[in-house]
């Protein structure tokens, strides 16, 4: 398949439209690796497609981008790496932001991290149930705050999630999601 040949253009077009079969994708990747001219043509058509798509959406008042139907194969690795990094960061963050709750104390939650709100004087008593997520039975009066208590990894340890009800949205979802 020569660069500029109708077969290559058809292959690129099918690839950009997410209509290429797995074998066709493999063939295109092989061509891109082996022939810089073919790779440049793929890149040129991809850029043209992206820019014209953007111009059309802008002109017709469609601000949202279409879902990427032709993510280049080499981008998939990048996406996996980014997702893995995000998971790792989330795990680190959850570990460092745990709050120790002294059940033997006066029953009030004491925050060890500034991320959580410091315990208010009128904080309600929590009655955490092991192995379950429990909302406090009573909310703080005259505030928008709500707390959810989750049992931690070690005995006597809990994680407190502060929910600002003023910023919390409720949306309906179907039960078959």
């Amino acid at each position: 398949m020569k660069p500029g040949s109708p077969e290559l253009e058809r292959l690129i077009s099918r690839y950009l439209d997410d209509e290429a079969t797995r074998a066709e994708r493999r063939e295109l990747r092989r061509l891109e690796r082996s022939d810089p001219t073919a790779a440049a043509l793929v890149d040129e058509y991809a850029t043209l497609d992206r820019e014209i798509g953007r111009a059309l959406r802008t002109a017709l008042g469609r601000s949202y981008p279409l879902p990427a139907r032709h993510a280049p194969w080499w981008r998939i690795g990048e996406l996996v790496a980014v997702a893995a990094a995000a998971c790792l960061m989330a795990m680190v963050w959850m570990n460092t932001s745990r709050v120790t709750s002294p059940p033997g104390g006066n029953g009030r939650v004491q925050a060890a991290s500034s991320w959580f709100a410091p315990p208010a004087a009128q904080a309600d008593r929590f009655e955490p149930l092991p192995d379950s997520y429990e909302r406090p039975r009573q909310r703080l009066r005259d505030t928008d705050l709500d707390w959810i208590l989750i049992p931690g990894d070690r005995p006597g340890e809990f994680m407190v999630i502060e929910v600002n009800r003023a910023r919390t949205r409720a949306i309906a979802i179907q039960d078959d999601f």
Partner: protein
Amino acid sequence: MSVTVDGEALHSLVVQAQQGDRPAADRLVREHGAWLRSVIYGVTGRVDLVDDIAQQVWAQVWERLDSLKEPRRLRSWLCSIARNAAIDAGEAHKRRESRTGSLQHLPEPADGKGRGSPLSAALDKEVQALLLDAVASLPALYREPFVLRHLEGWSYTEIGEVLGLPVETVETRLVRARRMLRETLTGQVDV
């Protein structure tokens, strides 16, 4: 695809709209309005005509909705009304323009707040105008599938169903559209 209702739901939605149910009619417009605008643009290549023609199309749709005997064929029925209306309006506009001279017909971008500096916004606008001119210069038979692919993200099969074309024809037209656009824009836009 913008059509989010299945066959049964579509059937009952159309029947309700035919019986004069206002929410059902509103839902039909919501679910089909966007892609109909794309069809209209695909035929005319003129952004500035799309809204007017779309309005005419929906007026015709409500007048003729009772004549739709097979609600499952709603999409192709809507498409044929939109294409005919767009062809008529486009030709009428061309006749008027040939008498009065062409006017600037590029609209302000919908997100006209601009990105970055005024210079980059101006360059963006210029590039956008070039790209839209190139699309407008395509013959309608190539522009239609190209626009539906790029605005609606439809597959070859979906485009073929709506335009009444075999999948192979859709594919060939998209290849040609891309080739023509590349030839038109080579040297004009740094892609």
